């Protein structure tokens, strides 16, 4: 039996790492990228049109957002899609494609990167450690490729989304400063609210959580220039990053408990490992038709997290006494 074929759109900093993981797992990978920023290896098949990838078992979208139009086209051909995109507007549009996915009997997994993505997997892991889950708070630090850096820059200048006591709230990006301790070697960074997709996807996966927020680390210069074009070019290969998820709830006796998990490493490596693990899960286990986020029940989050750790994600848990923050 032939190995499944995975299509990959976008062979940049993160996409090239996803391809390397998939090839190492013995899968065949077809790549569409008219201007790859990272050299395409000879073990990959290059195609001239993204539409050619509709013959693949799964197509992974790693190009700069928006992903909605291409995802819809591939879903219409009955091809499963995994999207790495983290743009809030794009995520909203893709979540609205449930009908399209069901009509064409195909699955779409959105936000399969570091945050959203790994954040959802960690939240699923933490949710198993509390009897009742009340709150989820995500913080992230670092960027993968240049497109990711631009996305974070824009997010800091837009209205941030949060789920607060049963309703969506929008607060100005760059507000809500909080000092967050990320896993080593990242350490402490001031984090602020931004237009991040985590609350949107986490609410879908964990509707029982009454409060969900997401923050991103930023400097004073980042906040000051958030509404302007980027003044300095982003790092071409990304930098070290981290994601930290805090879950609050109660144990069986009704006592308040807070559990915290995170991961740190090169941001592109973390995102690529999660994205590749998700694509592997879709190919090997399969998914019913519909739109899914990492952390939901249909996509076995702990299994995907296990695969991600096998691909290089080091999951860490905070073992001290968690102190209350202003969240």
């Amino acid at each position, binding site marked *: 039996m032939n190995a499944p074929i995975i299509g990959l759109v976008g062979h940049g900093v993160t996409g090239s790492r996803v391809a390397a993981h998939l090839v190492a797992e013995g899968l065949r990978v077809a790549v569409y990228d008219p201007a790859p920023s990272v050299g395409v290896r000879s073990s990959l098949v290059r195609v001239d049109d993204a539409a050619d990838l509709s013959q693949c078992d799964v197509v992974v979208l790693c190009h700069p957002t928006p992903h909605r139009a291409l995802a819809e086209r591939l879903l219409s051909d009955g091809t499963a899609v995994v999207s790495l995109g983290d743009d809030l507007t794009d995520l909203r549009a893709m979540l609205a494609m449930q009908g399209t996915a069901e009509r064409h009997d195909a699955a779409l997994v959105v936000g399969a990167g570091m945050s959203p993505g790994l954040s959802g997997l960690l939240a699923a892991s933490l949710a198993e450690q509390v009897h009742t889950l009340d709150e989820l708070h995500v913080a992230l630090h670092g960027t993968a490729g240049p497109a990711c850096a631009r996305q974070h820059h824009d997010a800091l200048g837009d209205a941030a989304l949060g789920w607060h006591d049963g309703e969506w709230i929008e607060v100005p990006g760059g507000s809500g400063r909080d000092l967050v301790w990320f896993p*080593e070697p990242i350490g402490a960074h001031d984090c602020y609210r931004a237009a991040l997709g985590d609350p949107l996807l986490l609410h879908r996966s964990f509707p029982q959580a009454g409060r969900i927020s997401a923050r991103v680390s930023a400097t004073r210069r980042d906040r000051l220039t958030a509404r302007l074009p980027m003044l300095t070019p982003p790092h071409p290969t990304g930098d070290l990053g981290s994601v930290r998820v805090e879950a609050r709830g109660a144990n069986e006796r009704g006592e308040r408990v807070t559990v915290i998990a995170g991961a740190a490493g090169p941001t592109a490596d973390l995102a690529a490992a999660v994205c590749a693990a998700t694509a592997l899960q879709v190919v090997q286990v399969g998914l019913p038709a519909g739109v899914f986020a990492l952390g939901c029940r249909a996509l076995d989050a702990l299994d995907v997290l296990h695969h991600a750790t096998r691909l290089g994600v080091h999951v860490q848990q905070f073992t001290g*006494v968690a102190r209350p923050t202003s969240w």
Partner: protein
Amino acid sequence: MVVAAPWLVGEFTGLGTLRTMKMLRRAIVALSMAGAIFATLRMRGKGGVPPQVGGWREVDVPPR
């Protein structure tokens, strides 16, 4: 006898002095307000306290 230039006298007497004082007062008020706003913004974020006990430890995620 030294006679001050008319423009110089104008600065320190009558309307000129009033204008200077008003400008100085406005500058002080503007600086105070900027300081108060900055202090409010600085104070509103609660920051945090470094963890005193424990720390991060790597955990295994077993297969399902």
